[in-house]
Structure formats: structure tokens, C-alpha cells
């Protein structure tokens, strides 16, 4: 038997100091990052967003407001299932593997371990969210003709991710059964996706949903946040709400476990109370919202009056007989616009009553009962016009429809003002059959005026639908006049406009 070699005693374990606590937590977080379900679900999240959201967003016209607001409406919902599921899966890990008792004896309180796991899951989910935002914004930056990124919609989406992971994680931690992950995911998807359906009007508390970008019944419209700044009021309330929900749930998670010790549970209770109070306040603030004339939601307590100033811009103008000038964000539509109303512009250019230039102006919105929005799109007349909300590239909108709408509004406005001598003088008069024939022949000839009976309308009410009622000699005259080239129409109008306005011409005298 040999004597055992004495072993020199090693250094005694040192109680962790505040200075080494952070590296310990960072190491724990690193471990959780490496062994996280969300990491494996990143491709699924990317694929779902590409299939559901990205393709549709990129099919929209390259306007920052349209794409950013649509992104807010789609991204969080597309990520709900992978993010919530991953969080629930990670939250139920200890219970699912029956190691809750085993890890209860480790140095870290249970809440700290849970927060590290939640933070790692949230970090990977944010990576997915930010990657999706970056993909949309980088592509839009390369295509947009004007403006810069709208950050608030992106911030709201990013702020919604921790709330989803907190909901999923807490459900997984509290009910670590095999069914909890799909069920909490379905509930989160249902709540987020269908929560906006209860929204009604601009005072609705439900517009606190992080999917709601702007007024419920306007949403992402080309004219919103173009002529005026994007108002962050609702976004601020939404970020406040999701952040409050996150802190509230995580706080309740800390309170719910007796293993956390009384001091930690008190801290968790304070955090939970503060979070839930913030969320409740945000909901109350959303209920004070009102629709501003430019299509966005104003929350008085959060509103900055400086945001009401119009955006300064240099308009983009066409090189047509009468220049058509639009907001530079709409410059991409200028060729389509001039193609649609080019004949009318040539026909009336230089005639008495014709404008020297036509400029796009902002649409004015007004809230109606429930979700109704009144768009005060009554054509301003003269030298200004409002562009339709349905621009090519938006879901369901086609180039042909866009051109038709322009001819029915801008084209009709131009011809009507010239032929009838402007709104003021025409208001009291009834248009003659010859005047109606010329108007009908100039606006979408052959499409809007082939009707069965004579028109009996006052001048200010003339629209494409009413021109459908032309018949008999007026319709035949309109057909003849429509067959003329724009230059010939212009020459004839230059010679006979005064007589036509005075009602001294019959349809038979039209060329």
C-alpha cells in the first residue's frame, strides 16, 4: 500500500460578485441562442412571409407609404405562427422533459433562466422580422421615385414580436403539455388576425392592434402620408401596448413561481403591474383617436402639431399640351395618365376656360358612422384634380381601370369646364344636346354615351353614367365628332366654342 499523494487544495469557490454576473447571464443567453427552436423555424418564417406577404407587397406600386403600411398589416400576422409556436415550445421545455425539479437547484432563479430562454427566442424572431423588413425596404429604396422609409410601421411590427413570444412562452411554461404549442399558436393567430374585425370608426379601441396601419377603412392608400407626414400617434400607442403586454406577461410569469423568492417576485409584480398599466393606457389612448382630413389617426395626447404641416415637394410634370403635374411619389403613373387623357388635353389646350396647367391635390377624408369613410373627392375643378386611390399594382386594380377612371374624372372635368364655360356659369344652365354630344364624344368615345334615351340633367351633374343616356341625333353627332382626331376637334372647337357655349348650335351642325 502506498501512501496517497496529498493533493494541494484548489482555490475555494468564490461567491459570484456583481461584476461576474453579467458574463454568466451572457453565457446562459449564448447557450439558449444555440439551442433554440426559433433558429430552426427561421426558414419557415421566411418562406411564409415570402409566400403570403412579400410577393403582394412588392407587387404594389413603389411608394413608401403603400409598402410600409401594408408591411405592418401583414408581417406580424405572417410571423405569428412560427414565433408563437417556437416560444411555446421553448417555454414548455422544462415541463415537457420533466427536468423542472432537476434545474430548480441551479444557481439562477427560475425566472432568470426563463427570461434567458425567452430573450434568445425573441432575438431569433427579431432576426426574422428585421430580415423581412430589410428585404422590403431595400427593394423599395431601389424602386421608389420619391421619399424615404417610413420607420414607424416597421417599429410596430418589431415591437409586436416580443409580445408574441411572451404569450407563447408563458403558455408553454404554465401548461407544458403536448397540446399547448398548437393551441396557444391558434389562439394567438385568431386573436391577432381577427381582432381588427371588431374595429369600428376612428374611436375604436380595437385599432390598438399592431396590424392596424392607419384608419381602418382607408388603410394603405396612395394619398395617405404622401402630401402630409405620416402621423406616428397610433403607432406610438401600439408600441406602448405591445411593450406593456410583454412586460405584463413576463412579470406575471415571475410572480407565478414560488421558486423565485419573495424579493424577485415583488420585483416581478411591479413589472407586471407597470406593463399592464401601460397596455391599458395605450388602449384608452387608441379610443380617443380621430380621423384627420389626410387619412391618418390623430391621438390628441400623443399628437405633435408640427406633423400637420404639408410635405414640401417639387411636382413632376408631363410634357403635354397642358402640363399635368403630380406629387413626385406618383411620378411612375405620369405616362399612364398622359396616355389616358392625352387626347382631351390636346383637344382643349389654349381654348377659353382651359387651364394652363393641372395639378394633383390631396384627397380629404371624413369619418362617417361605423367604418364609413367619406372621401371628399368632388373634383375641385379648374386646374386641380385628385388621383384615384386605385392605382395600378394595388390588389384588384388594373391599368385599364386606372385609365378609365381618369377619363371619367379628369378627362370629363376638362371637357365639361371648357364646353360649358366652367362650373359657375353652367350651374344655372341646362346643357344643350350639341354640348352633350361634344362632351360625350370627347370622353371615352364609344364607351360611355351609347344610351337609349335623351339626357335630362343639369350641367354640374354630368357624369359618365348620365352621358349614357344620349340617343337620336345627339348620339349620331357624338359618333361623328368622336371619329375626328384630337387636333381636328381642337380646330373646330377654337372656331365654334362661343356659339356652342351659347347654345346656338344643334347636333346636326357638329362635323
Amino acid at each position, binding site marked *: 500500500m502506498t501512501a496517497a499523494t496529498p493533493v494541494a487544495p484548489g482555490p475555494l469557490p468564490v461567491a459570484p460578485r456583481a461584476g461576474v454576473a453579467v458574463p454568466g447571464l451572457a453565457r446562459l443567453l449564448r447557450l439558449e441562442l444555440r439551442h433554440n427552436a426559433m433558429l430552426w423555424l427561421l426558414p*419557415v418564417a421566411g418562406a*411564409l412571409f415570402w*409566400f*403570403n406577404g412579400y410577393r*403582394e407587397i412588392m407587387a404594389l406600386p413603389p411608394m413608401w407609404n403603400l409598402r410600409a403600411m401594408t408591411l405592418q398589416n401583414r408581417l406580424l400576422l*405572417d410571423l405569428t*405562427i*412560427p414565433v408563437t*409556436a417556437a416560444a411555446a415550445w421553448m417555454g414548455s*421545455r422544462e415541463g*415537457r*422533459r420533466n427536468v423542472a425539479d432537476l434545474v430548480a437547484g441551479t444557481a439562477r432563479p427560475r425566472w432568470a433562466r426563463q427570461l434567458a430562454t425567452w430573450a434568445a427566442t425573441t432575438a431569433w424572431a427579431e432576426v426574422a422580422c428585421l430580415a423581412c423588413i430589410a428585404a422590403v425596404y431595400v427593394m423599395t429604396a431601389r424602386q421608389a421615385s420619391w421619399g424615404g422609409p417610413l420607420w414607424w410601421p416597421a417599429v410596430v411590427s418589431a415591437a409586436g414580436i416580443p409580445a408574441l413570444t411572451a404569450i407563447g412562452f408563458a403558455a408553454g411554461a404554465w401548461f407544458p*403539455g*403536448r*397540446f399547448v*404549442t*398548437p*393551441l396557444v*399558436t*391558434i389562439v394567438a*393567430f*385568431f386573436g391577432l*388576425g*381577427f381582432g381588427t*374585425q371588431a374595429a369600428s370608426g376612428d374611436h375604436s379601441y380595437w385599432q390598438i392592434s399592431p396590424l392596424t396601419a392607419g384608419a381602418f377603412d382607408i388603410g394603405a392608400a396612395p394619398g395617405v402620408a404622401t402630401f402630409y407626414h405620416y402621423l406616428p400617434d397610433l403607432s406610438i400607442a401600439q408600441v406602448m401596448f405591445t411593450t406593456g403586454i410583454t412586460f405584463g406577461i413576463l412579470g406575471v410569469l415571475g410572480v407565478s413561481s414560488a421558486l423565485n423568492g419573495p424579493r424577485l417576485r415583488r420585483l416581478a409584480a411591479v413589472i407586471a403591474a407597470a406593463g399592464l398599466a401601460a397596455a391599458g393606457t395605450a388602449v384608452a389612448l387608441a379610443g380617443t383617436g380621430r380621423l384627420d382630413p389626410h387619412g391618418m389617426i390623430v391621438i390628441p395626447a400623443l399628437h405633435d402639431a408640427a406633423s400637420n404641416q404639408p410635405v414640401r415637394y417639387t411636382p413632376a410634370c408631363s410634357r403635354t399640351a397642358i402640363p399635368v403635374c403630380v406629387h413626385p411619389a406618383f411620378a411612375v403613373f405620369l405616362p399612364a395618365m398622359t396616355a389616358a387623357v392625352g387626347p382631351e388635353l390636346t383637344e382643349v389646350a389654349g381654348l377659353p376656360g382651359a387651364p394652363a396647367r393641372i395639378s394633383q391635390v390631396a384627397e380629404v377624408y371624413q369619418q362617417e358612422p361605423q367604418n364609413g369613410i367619406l372621401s371628399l373627392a368632388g373634383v375641385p375643378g379648374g386646374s386641380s384634380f385628385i388621383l384615384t386611390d386605385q392605382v395600378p399594382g394595388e*390588389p*384588384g386594380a388594373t391599368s385599364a381601370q386606372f385609365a378609365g377612371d381618369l377619363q371619367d374624372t379628369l378627362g370629363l372635368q376638362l371637357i365639361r369646364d371648357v364646353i360649358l364655360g366652367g362650373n359657375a356659369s353652367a350651374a344655372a344652365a341646362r346643357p344643350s344636346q350639341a354640348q352633350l354630344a361634344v362632351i360625350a364624344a370627347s370622353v371615352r368615345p364609344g364607351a360611355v354615351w351609347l344610351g337609349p334615351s335623351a339626357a335630362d340633367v343639369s350641367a354640374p351633374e354630368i357624369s359618365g353614367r348620365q352621358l349614357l343616356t344620349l340617343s337620336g341625333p345627339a348620339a349620331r353627332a357624338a359618333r361623328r365628332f368622336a371619329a375626328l382626331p384630337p387636333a381636328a376637334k381642337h380646330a373646330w372647337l377654337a372656331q365654334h366654342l362661343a356659339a356652342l357655349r351659347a347654345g346656338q348650335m344643334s347636333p346636326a351642325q357638329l362635323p
Partner: protein
Amino acid sequence: MTAGAIRQAPRPALRLVWLHAASRRLPAAVALLAACAAGLRAALFWHWDAYGALQLPLIFEAGCAAVIAVAAGSPFGDPERATGRWLPFLRLGAAAALTALAVAALTAAGAGAHLSGGFLDVLRNVAGLTGIGLLCAVVLGGPLAWTGPLAYLMVSVYGLYTDWHPPTLSTPLIWPARPPHDLGGALCAAVVFAAGLIAIAVRGAREPDGG
């Protein structure tokens, strides 16, 4: 074999079925299917817009399919495979019975209310989604079998959305977006369901690597 043994023969069979059901948490699964049906019924009292009315049943159908798929997982693994001669039939019976129960429960929940698509829609969607879930159970294991139905739910919800916002996704592979009487969609769902049933009966759910 004695006369007493013959009289007692049904009891061991029933016990085997019960043990199989208990090992898969089938009673809990049945309760959750009933909860899904109750949730659908409660949701149908609400006034939904066109989107909501069409997409609402699909969410509960996906929930049922996920529950059925997760219930396919076995906690025993090899010992059960080695000793269970009737195991394929038990797996097949459990999956088929739960699917039938889900269809019946959801259809009953929609009775007297405006259930978009009606019985045929519920039958097709639940069967197809369950087929996806069962295939996921075979490939990924029971605990992760929900991934397929829930991912497909997202695709299907978008498919229904494109009914309003063209271009419409018209492929029968996204059968929830097709009309209830559409043959292509029904065939796709039936094929996926049959494949899922066969796979789960023959192979069983994959055993998890460690949870």
C-alpha cells in the same frame, strides 16, 4: 380455452384499446376537439365580414388537425412496437376516429349558423389538414406534428384572401381556397389524408430524440 375465457375475450380487447387511447392522451384530445367546436360555435355568434366568415372555420379546423396529429405520438417507442401486434390497427383507428369526431363536432357547431362552406368544406379541410399532420408526425414525431397543419393554415388563409385580391391562387393543392364542391381540391385532400393514415398506421409517429 375455457368457456369463461371466451366470455372475457372482449374485455382484454377493450382494455387494449383503452390503454392505447390513454397512452396517446386521446381523452384530452377529445376534450380539446370539443373545445375547438365550442370555440367555433361561440365565434359564429359574432358578425364577421366576408374575410372573417370564410377564414374563421379554417382556423378551428387547423386546430383540430393539429390536436389529432399531436395525439399520434407514442411515449413508449420500441417496447410497444415489439409487443404490439395490433398497433397499426390501433393507430389507424385512433386517427380515423378522431378525424370523424372532429368533422362531426365542427359540423354540429355550425348547425343553425352561417358556417362558410358547410359540411363538405369541413370534411375536406379537416381530412386534408389531418393528413398533413399525420405525415408530419411520421417524419418529425408527435410533439412536432403541429408544424404542418399550422404552416398550411397560413398558406390557406392567404389562398382565401386572394379570392378578393387577384391573382387568385387556384391550385387544388391549396384546397381550402377552392369551393366546397370542387373535385380537384377534394381529391388532393383525400390523397393527403389517405397517405397520412397509411403512414401513421404502418410506421407510427417518429420517436423524439429527447424531447
